[in-house]
């Protein structure tokens, strides 16, 4: 029991600190610009850490460490895939997003198109991604906290829901940003400390550790296995989803509005890429550390399907103290991610749906803030309810689903809006809807749901069976094709006319510094 108390103690320290920051942030949150974008006053370095905090979910820390601990090499497929999306964001999306938008990525997609239809489609795209991501995080949170702290599942979900809503509701983006920065700092320092403690036993040479793992578990832990990547098409499709899904996550895209200009936006991605890449490299080492120092049997025996590898390694390395610290960090990780998700969902509902579509862009600051806060509460309640409804479900496919949808529904529309002159309103809407619906339908008809979840062994014999675990190869390319074909069928001159002006503004972000605000 004592290790639970240490973990709970560390967690309360984190909660107290972050609630203090929320109180401080709440007094500074006076306008929508503060609530959605922290007033644009975050530096590139800070935003880089916050992006890393938003992105390094419990799935990537505990999940990848567990995956490596049980399978070895294969964890690298996810680590690399989740990292290579960042350079793509930097090269193609960060600057136009910062220079053209205000609070949401829909600002950019709708820039030269008809506001109403595009915003509604983008809200659907945002909510589908946010809710599937939230389900994965909440169910993961409940299960983990049960394992880590010995708390009841529903109690754990309620704690996450209430604390997260407090951050978002009162502190908006300012509080959320600092929660993410603190969490990223804690997670990175905890992981680095553990890596040092592991490597000191192997002469600070990771290959000695890998060699020991191969000696104990066989050579296959150092080479690609068959569990994650079953075939070439599956590999390609998974790779596309991991890579381009990152560039379609609304809570990540939203963070670019918290920095003052494109220069800082670029710096934020550079820092995020450095931190996240470092984190994945050391998680790989930690996974092997758990394989050798804890052993596969011990990890499997503790439950959670490998997710306990990192906490158990912490216990083996530093006793109850380090175990408690890492457990608390894992909890904090989940809190920060769900706060970011909720805020981006609230921005879509209030900024895109309520203010820009229903009120035609005319709403007072007070009204906008009120609607944004109501939307946050609604999403927070949804998150808690979904977490309870999906209790005990195997939600491993949810992360894949989230990235597939993000890559198929938000990313193509965003790319076409930025780079293709002839995109029309109908084209953008069709692309978003095709991406969202296509992905959900194909995952439902695919092996993950039919074989793993429904145990429908007969499914592959039916004509409707979709053979790939991950549909991104078809749904993402399909979303591009649908967007292009629908646009070409019926041109929209006003959109083409607006392209030159949009391109100019995307290039001249620096002007905003020289010219007086607004």
């Amino acid at each position, binding site marked *: 029991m004592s290790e639970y108390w240490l973990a709970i103690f560390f967690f309360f320290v984190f909660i107290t600190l972050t609630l203090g920051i929320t109180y401080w942030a709440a007094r500074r949150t006076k306008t929508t610009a503060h609530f959605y974008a922290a007033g644009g006053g975050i530096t590139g370095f800070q935003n880089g850490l916050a992006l890393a905090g938003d992105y390094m979910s419990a799935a990537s820390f505990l999940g990848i460490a567990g995956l490596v601990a049980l399978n070895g090499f294969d964890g690298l497929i996810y680590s690399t895939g989740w990292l290579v999306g960042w350079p793509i964001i930097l090269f193609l999306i960060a600057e136009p997003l910062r220079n053209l938008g205000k609070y949401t990525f829909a600002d950019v997609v709708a820039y030269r198109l008809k506001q109403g239809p595009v915003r509604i489609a983008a809200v659907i795209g945002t909510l589908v991604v946010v809710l599937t991501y939230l389900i994965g995080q909440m169910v993961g949170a409940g299960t983990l906290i049960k394992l880590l702290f010995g708390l009841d599942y529903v109690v754990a979900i309620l704690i996450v829901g209430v604390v997260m809503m407090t951050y978002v509701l009162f502190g908006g983006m300012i509080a959320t940003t600092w929660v993410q920065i603190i969490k990223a700092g804690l997670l990175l320092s905890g992981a680095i400390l553990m890596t040092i403690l592991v490597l000191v036993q192997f002469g600070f040479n990771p*290959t000695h550790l890998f060699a*020991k793992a191969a000696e104990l578990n066989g050579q296959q832990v150092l080479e690609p296995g068959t569990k994650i990547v079953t075939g070439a098409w599956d590999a390609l499709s998974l790779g596309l989803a991991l890579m381009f899904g990152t560039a379609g996550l609304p809570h990540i895209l939203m963070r670019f509005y918290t920095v003052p200009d494109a220069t800082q936006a670029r710096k934020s991605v550079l820092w995020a890429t450095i931190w996240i*890449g470092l984190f994945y490299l050391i998680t790989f080492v930690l996974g092997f550390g758990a394989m050798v120092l804890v052993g596969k049997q011990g990890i499997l025996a503790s439950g959670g399907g490998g997710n306990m590898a990192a906490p158990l390694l912490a216990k083996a390395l530093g006793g109850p103290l380090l175990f408690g610290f890492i457990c608390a960090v894992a909890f904090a990780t989940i809190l920060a991610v769900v706060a970011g998700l909720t805020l981006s969902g609230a921005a879509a509902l209030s900024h895109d749906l309520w203010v820009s579509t229903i009120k035609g862009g005319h709403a007072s600051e007070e009204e906008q803030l009120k609607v944004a806060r109501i939307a946050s509460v609604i999403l927070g309640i949804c998150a808690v309810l979904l977490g309870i409804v999906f209790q005990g479900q195997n939600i491993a496919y949810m992360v894949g689903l989230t990235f597939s949808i993000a890559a198929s529904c938000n990313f193509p529309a965003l790319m076409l809006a930025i780079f293709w002159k002839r995109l029309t309103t109908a084209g953008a809407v069709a692309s978003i809807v095709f991406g969202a619906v296509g992905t959900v339908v194909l995952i439902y008809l695919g092996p993950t749901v039919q074989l793993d979840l429904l145990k429908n062994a007969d499914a592959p014999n039916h004509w409707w069976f979709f053979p790939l675990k991950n549909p991104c190869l078809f749904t993402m390319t399909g979303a591009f094709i649908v967007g292009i074909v629908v646009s070409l069928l019926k041109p929209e001159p006003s959109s083409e006319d607006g392209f030159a002006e949009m391109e100019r503004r995307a290039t001249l972000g620096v002007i905003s510094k020289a010219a007086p605000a607004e």
Partner: protein
Amino acid sequence: MSEVESKLHAIAGARFRLAIILTILMLVFYFGFIMLVAFDKPLLGTLLSPGLSLGILLGALVIVSAWVLCLIYVHWANNHYDKVVAAAVIEAQGRK
């Protein structure tokens, strides 16, 4: 098209070309790695030294290459690109 406009046009074009080249490099590195995982598992299992397989080395190199590509882009854009754009804007305002 005025002189300033053509300068802006040129630098925007240069940025776009660099962005596309770096994107293609990242795609080649990553999907090259993934295709090796899918098609040539034995090759990636080759041991370069005890404990270090080719697969692990290439995976780590994909991560390092992402760092390097980002660094190249940010270095160029935050030093060269921003200065050229800012100078062009000042020139345009000065003529008004």
